[in-house]
C-alpha cells in the first residue's frame, strides 16, 4: 500500500467514526424525547400547592354539624389537582364512640375525596388507657377504622400485644391482629 492510499484510508476511518458518534448521539436524543410520552408527567406538584400553611396550624372537619376530627401540624400543603393535603408532624384527634382518640406521626397525607388519611413514621395512637405504636396507618374517616400490614404494639391496662398486620375499629374499641401474635399479661396476683 502506498503512502497516499494509507492516509486516505485513515481519513475514511475517521469519517466513519464521526458519523457513528453523530448517529449514536442522535439516537440518544430521540430516545429521550420518545420516553417523555404524554401520559408520563414529571411535573413538580410540590411547587403548585393551592394552599400552603407554613408553621403550626390547626384544622377541623365537621359532618352534619358534628366534629369528626381536628388536626394540627407544623406544615400544611393542599394540592387541588390531586385533592390531597400533606401535613408534617400531624396530631389528629378523632371523636369516636369510645371517647377521643389521638393519633400522632411524622407525616400524613389526607385524600379529601376518599376521606382517607395515610399516616407514616412513628405512628402513636392513644385511646383512654391504651397506647399503640406502628410505622404506618391508613385511616378511613367515615368508618373510623384504621389498618395496615405493618407491625403494631398495643399496650395498656397491664397487657402488651404485638402482631403483624392490624385492623382497628375506633368506634367499637375493637382491635384485630392478623398474624404472629405475642401477648403478655402483667404479673398475676
Amino acid at each position: 500500500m502506498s503512502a497516499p492510499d494509507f492516509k486516505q484510508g485513515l481519513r475514511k476511518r475517521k469519517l466513519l467514526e464521526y458519523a457513528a458518534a453523530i448517529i449514536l448521539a442522535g439516537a440518544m436524543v430521540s430516545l429521550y424525547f420518545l420516553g417523555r410520552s404524554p401520559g408520563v408527567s414529571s411535573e413538580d406538584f410540590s411547587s403548585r400547592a393551592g394552599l400552603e400553611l407554613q408553621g403550626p396550624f390547626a384544622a377541623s372537619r365537621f359532618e352534619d354539624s358534628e366534629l369528626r376530627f381536628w388536626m394540627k401540624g407544623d406544615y400544611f400543603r393542599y394540592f387541588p389537582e390531586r385533592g390531597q393535603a400533606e401535613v408534617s408532624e400531624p396530631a389528629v384527634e378523632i371523636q369516636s364512640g369510645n371517647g377521643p382518640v389521638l393519633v400522632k406521626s411524622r407525616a400524613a397525607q389526607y385524600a379529601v375525596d376518599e376521606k382517607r388519611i395515610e399516616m407514616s413514621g412513628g405512628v402513636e395512637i392513644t385511646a383512654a388507657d391504651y397506647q399503640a405504636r406502628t410505622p404506618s396507618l391508613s385511616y378511613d374517616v367515615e368508618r373510623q377504622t384504621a389498618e395496615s400490614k405493618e407491625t403494631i404494639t398495643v399496650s395498656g391496662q397491664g397487657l402488651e400485644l404485638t402482631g403483624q398486620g392490624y385492623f382497628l375499629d375506633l368506634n367499637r374499641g375493637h382491635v384485630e391482629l392478623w398474624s404472629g401474635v405475642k401477648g403478655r399479661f402483667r404479673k398475676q396476683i
Partner: protein
Amino acid sequence: MKKIIAGLCLTLALSAAGPEQGRKPRSEIAFSGFSWQPGEMVEINAEKMSLELKERKADFTGKVVVNKGKSQIYCDRLSVKYLESGQISWLKAEGAVKLIEGKSFATGDELEYEKEQNRIWLRGLPRLSSEGQIVLGDLMVFDLAGSRLLVDNPRLQFEKDKNEPASK
C-alpha cells in the same frame, strides 16, 4: 417406692370417696401438679387475635400457646378476660387442649380458669397423666389453692414404669 406410695394414696382417696346415691361418683385427690403461682407473667402466642377494649376480652386463635411460670397450655382457641390491672380473671381454652407442668400432663376438649375460685375445669374427655398414673373422668376440677383434684366418674390407670423389670 415414692411412686408406689403416691399410687396407694390416690387409690385410697378414690375408694374412700365412693359413689353417692343418685349422683355420679366424685373423687377427691391430693394433687399439686399445676401450681399457677402468683407473681407470674402470662405470655400468649397465637396466629391471630381480636380484642374488645370495653369488655377487656381477648380472643386468640391458631396454634395458641400460653406460658405461665412452669405451666404451658396448648390449644386451638383461647379467650381471656382481664381486669383493669392486667390480672387475668377468666380464661377459656378450646380445641385439643393440653396443660403441661413438669411431669403432669392433662388433656381435654375445653379448659376453663376462674381467678375468683382459683380453679381450673377440664371438660370433654379429660385425662390427667402424672407420675405414671392416669386419671380419666367426665369432669376434672383442679383446686389450685387447696392442691386438690376433683374428678367426676373417675377411672384410674397405672402406667408401667419403663425402668421396672418385666414380670415373669
